[in-house]
């Protein structure tokens, strides 16, 4: 299964607004995607509540895993996590 590793770039971490942007994108893809902080259990990437509950901070290493054919959406999600989400317009 395709997987990617990256580091949270957003200075304020993945609080409600960036978590919303991320979860919305993951859900809209139709692919089953999980996200896990290094060394922790993976959670559903399309769930804003689970992502907020993970409390990801600036500099945290995460792994994204998708189902078959999810390479493109994984790349897009990685790009999102590596950008300054607080400056993305709502």
């Amino acid at each position, binding site marked *: 299964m395709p997987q990617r590793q990256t580091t949270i770039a957003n*200075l*304020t971490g993945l609080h409600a607004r960036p978590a*919303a942007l991320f979860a919305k994108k993951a859900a809209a893809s139709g692919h089953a995607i999980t996200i896990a902080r290094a060394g922790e259990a993976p959670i559903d990437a399309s*769930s804003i*509540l689970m992502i*907020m*509950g993970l*409390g990801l901070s600036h500099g945290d290493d995460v792994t994204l895993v998708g189902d078959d054919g999810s390479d493109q959406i994984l790349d897009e999600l990685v790009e999102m996590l590596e950008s300054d989400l*607080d400056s993305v317009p709502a």
Partner: protein
Amino acid sequence: MSALTESLILDGVGVGRGCAVAPVAFVRLAPEAPADEPSPADPDAAVAATQEAFSQVSASLQARADSAEGNLAEVLQATALMAGDASLHADVEKRIREGAGPATAVTAAVAAFAAMFEAAGGYLAERVTDLNSVRDRVVARLLGAEEPGLALTERSIVAALDLSPADTAALDLDLVAGIVTELGGPTGHTAIIAGQLGIPCLVRVAGLSDVPAGTEVAVDAAAGRVITAPPADLKEEFARRAEREAALAGDTEPGATRDGRAVQLLANIGTPADAVRAVAAHAEGVGLFRTEVLFLDATEAPSEEAQSAAYRDAVEALGGRKLVVRTLDAGADKPLAFATQPDEENPALGVRGFRLTRILPELVQTQLDALGTVADESVWAMAPMIATPAEARDFASRAREAGIGTVGVMVEVPAAALRAEAILREVDFVSLGTNDLAQYTMATDRLRGELADLLDLWQPAVLELVRSTAQAGRRLDKPVGVCGESASDPLMALVLVGLGITSLSMSPGALPAVRFAVRQHTVAQCEAIALAALSQDEAGAAREAALALVNADVRDALGL
């Protein structure tokens, strides 16, 4: 209209001094899942019904998000996604299939996520309010009840257990005669909004929920009381008081004691539009421009140009009157998207105010540069959360380099009050923020309503720190102002003048009463009042001792 003819008195904590009489209207409470909700006979149908309720709530929140702007739109958008969250739905379904009733399952599933957020603390803990609002709306739909909230049709006293910022924003303020809450604190969000708008307000009113909706009630913020079914003579007295307050507003001369010592009476503002209102209220200038309000809706720090434009608008609105600009006071109860430190366990004691220069130095620098471009001699700048003379020196050199002529710092950390003379050697003036000073002196969270007595601004320990700061100012002949809640209480204003405070900055609605009280007393009388308060051991006794020495006409006219 009501069967309740007996007049009851409910005690609370008053905000400001206003009074009003009107029928009481309750903000509709969220219905709760019945304790004995039966297991669903048809679990598939129950699961489908909860899914439908979640989708409807998610859609209605999304519709509200689409028509909202800025920060509110983002909060509503995130809340809509929470309502549509698959993990939440799966948890609800699991609970229903284990035999829970639908409303019970929703309540328990939300509580599980809320517990997770609360355990994380800080920013996430604050999002629990949003999550609970999803629960309230879904449960209301499942039970066939109306959604929580309040739509006013006549001038009313708005009553609630507590009001969230979203609740307050949804009210038609023209129809709000007063606000009364059972919880909340006197420096909380609701109280601050009510104070700014001049709406009579009481918080911590016990027994409020027992008053039948529609009952006429009299709200007396000055006395901290709500009187249900007020007798005719009391209603007349309140009407007279309202008239007197209008008459007081007729004195528009600069503030001074009876024997002529000037006490500058200034306004606290958050936007350039507030500056226009401050001038209309005959303020002699602005003693506190809370610049973070300009930043609150922003997802990134406003540019130097955008900030300059806002500061220029304020300077122009004031037409040469003094403008004291406080640099960004983000953090703690004022989180900003681009400056919030997400991992702080103790945000009130963390990287907030001037301390942000340690991690985001460009934030304050951009602000000072923007201010420098519009600064003439009327513009003063001050930094919040200064604890040491070295910090004061650091800020002063940055501000002067940016071209600001008069620089000062806030005294709100006890360390700064205790070493006020050393701090004042570094700057041109200081301003006491009494709300935070009380919070830090009394080790009491401003947001904890049940500790309101400890946060009482009459606590002698707090007054003592005000006194030592004012004395340091007199020794160095530099201005020492107060821009906290204390300045808006006319009785406290007399104490502050007696302690040697040179300017008082408050919400514009408080100016007439303070102007009147100060004008009726000499400096010597104010000093005696201050001494009487300081010689007490308890907040209540300090206020009583001060009140006993106040001119009887003033006491009557202000209903003290």
